[in-house]
């Protein structure tokens, strides 16, 4: 008896036994199948943001993560303050240099040590 023949014999025997199952057994089998289908997990589509929130809850919930997050925020704030500070300094320099370079007092008069000395002598 080869493998195919054996399979065919098993199928014939099982089909024949199907007719022997009584109505009560069939009903229990049907109910069991329906219960199994009812509890089967349905695949659900999660929004991206919900996924991100879940990731944050899982990975940023630890004290170490919160510490890193706080340090990062502090560094970002420090960088912003330094940027604002530099910006206002450059703005101030730009204003002074514009006035100085356009003034009718020549730049040489501001730098000549001899003139400074002469002003002192002639006061």
């Amino acid at each position, binding site marked *: 008896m080869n493998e195919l023949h054996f399979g065919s014999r098993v199928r014939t025997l099982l089909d024949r036994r199907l007719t022997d199952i009584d109505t009560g057994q069939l009903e229990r089998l049907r109910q069991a199948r329906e219960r199994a289908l009812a509890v089967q997990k349905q695949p659900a589509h999660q929004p991206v943001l919900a996924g991100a929130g879940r990731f944050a809850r899982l990975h940023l919930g630890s004290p170490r993560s919160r510490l890193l997050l706080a340090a990062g925020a502090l560094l970002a704030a420090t960088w912003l303050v330094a940027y604002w500070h530099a910006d206002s300094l450059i703005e101030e320099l730009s204003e*002074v240099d514009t006035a100085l*370079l356009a003034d009718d*007092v020549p730049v040489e008069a501001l730098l*000549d040590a*001899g003139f400074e000395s002469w002003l002192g002598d002639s006061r």
Partner: protein
Amino acid sequence: MARRFALALAAALSLGVAAAAEPGPAVAATPPQPAWSALDKEQQAILAPLADEWDRMENYRRKKWLGIAQRYRAMPPADQQRLQERMRTWAALTPEQRLAARQKYREIKKMDPEKRAAMKEKWRQYNALPEEEKRRLRAERPAQGKPSESTTTGADRR
């Protein structure tokens, strides 16, 4: 954990304080500014005396000159001409010389108009002195451009 957080907080705060107390590095951290070829035609015309050295300038100096170019547009023609004539000379000064000139200029700006006019007249008279006399006067005073550290700021040196 709280101790480690406090240490991290202190480190970050000290960085912030250092950035505020030392304007030099903060100014040096200016974001990249446009190259000469990226300036518009009007900016190039105003800043023409700086064309050769523009691409070698530090970012904070480019930003400062762009601010000057912005103000230039609203100036009377006589002031515009003076400013442009002095650009190259000013850019060639050392940071210490620029610092000294700004300090002196701030003093002059505070003078009343009569004193200011008198000073300009004295400058005219001084220029008429013989070179020998000027050299003697210069030798009497220590060279400009070496002001005391206590009166300077990092930004002024730019």
